[in-house]
């Protein structure tokens, strides 16, 4: 079991169990994390799944694809150094215990 802590826009925390190989968005949406609307269901078309990762996780993942980069540049919550679209991030066992922030628009 991979457990990830989401910090919701109002500052409250939610512990979410995530499945290896699924997207971070699916874990958050399934648990009803506030602020992860995920309207497009993972097509990288809506940016309503914007999260901020811990620096070391962000670094490990490698650069996002250009389409994601462009969506993030104009996301409703301003882009931060470690911003990602959570639907484009695959959950791996080494993510157990990490803290992911949902930014405020």
């Amino acid at each position, binding site marked *: 079991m991979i457990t990830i802590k989401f910090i919701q826009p109002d500052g409250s925390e939610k512990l979410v169990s995530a499945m290896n190989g699924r997207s971070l968005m699916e874990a958050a949406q399934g648990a009803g994390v506030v602020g992860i609307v995920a309207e497009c269901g993972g*097509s990288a078309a809506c940016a309503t799944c914007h999260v901020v990762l811990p620096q070391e996780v962000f670094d490990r993942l490698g650069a996002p694809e250009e*389409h994601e980069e462009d969506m993030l540049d104009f996301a409703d919550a301003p882009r931060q150094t470690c911003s990602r679209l959570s639907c484009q991030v695959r959950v791996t066992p080494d993510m157990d215990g990490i803290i992911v922030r949902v930014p405020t628009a």
Partner: protein
Amino acid sequence: MKQIVIIGAGQAGLSCAAKLRADGFEGEITLIGNEKDAPYQRPPLSKAYLLGNLDAERLLLRPLTWYDQHQVDLRTGVAVATIDRAGKAVTLSDGKSLSYDALVLATGAEARPLPEDLLGGRSGVHTIRDRSDIEMMRPELDAAQSVLVIGGGYIGLEMAAVARGLGLGVNVVEAAPALLGRVACRETAAAIAELHEERGVRLHIGQGVTELTGETQVTGARLADGTEISADVVIVGIGAAPRTALAEAAGLDIANGILVDATGRTSDPAIYAAGDCACYRLPDGDLRLESVGNAIDTGEVVAGSILESGAGYTPKPWFWSDQFDLKLQIAGRAQPGDMIVVRISTIGARSHWYYRDGVLAAIDALNSPRAYQVGRKLILDGLTPDPGAIADPHRPIKDIFNETRAALFAR
């Protein structure tokens, strides 16, 4: 307010239930759906799911455990048969009845079938709305060599792209003079037509189907100009109609959908409607949208109205469509007659900006996520970029965005 009953366990029904709980409603919520499945995403049905790239479980909007955890009484495989407005109760197809303090109609829309005289009882002809429609079609598709798609709208074109991806021969017939009917401008329709033709889809635009061929099993179709097309499977994508029968039988007001005001309330103050089935009467006209974003937004609007905490509905129309390697993103509401400004970013990446009376009304972005995001934000803020700047590929979109916003604050 103790008991809320939601009819229709789809995107809008779930959104309403989730928002009620998120906003602290502690009474009973019953979510009733006549499909077998718990609420799931429909868009992948004509995309990844049809390709076979996604398990059914991954379509679910929430895992099944969510409903227990949030005390949402989800009843699937049962339909609401009647609404008794005077007694504030509904009867179900399993004979049970349920009383409500507030009732939400989130019954969605249904795919328009081919007229019966064309269809003539033939098998091998499919409309797509539910997951079960895909399951029914899949074995036929697996055995097929060729597919005919009737209707050049988004769903039909997505299905055509997937069928090509599966290696099938694909014909698309569209009776109107262009693809995507009234919703897209000529420039968008032409770019999409070109993409499909490049990928080997044969398009027949401006051609109606005059008859289907085959005795009991469809073998193809004949078009108005005499062209004969053979096909093992026919997919019908000629639009959808709002499911209003239940509301109509209950005597609620109906327009192009179940008529509601800006708070989502029908002509009965205890009954609300959200999603594809609802027609919102707003100051600037009636609005019925068929999109995920709208289903989520209106589901939440209704929750807010029931709890008397909501601000009502401000439409934020947007849509996406994936065809081959094209990512199309659309924001705003286009109308025939809008002036179109074309912005070409790089090869294969372009956006079409719709101006109406000098005001930016909509944008279609083809593989242009930056243009989409900027256009969407400007439309929401009621801002209009200079058309000359938009048409100039050397002007970075970010600068145009900043200048347009700065002009507002300078006013």
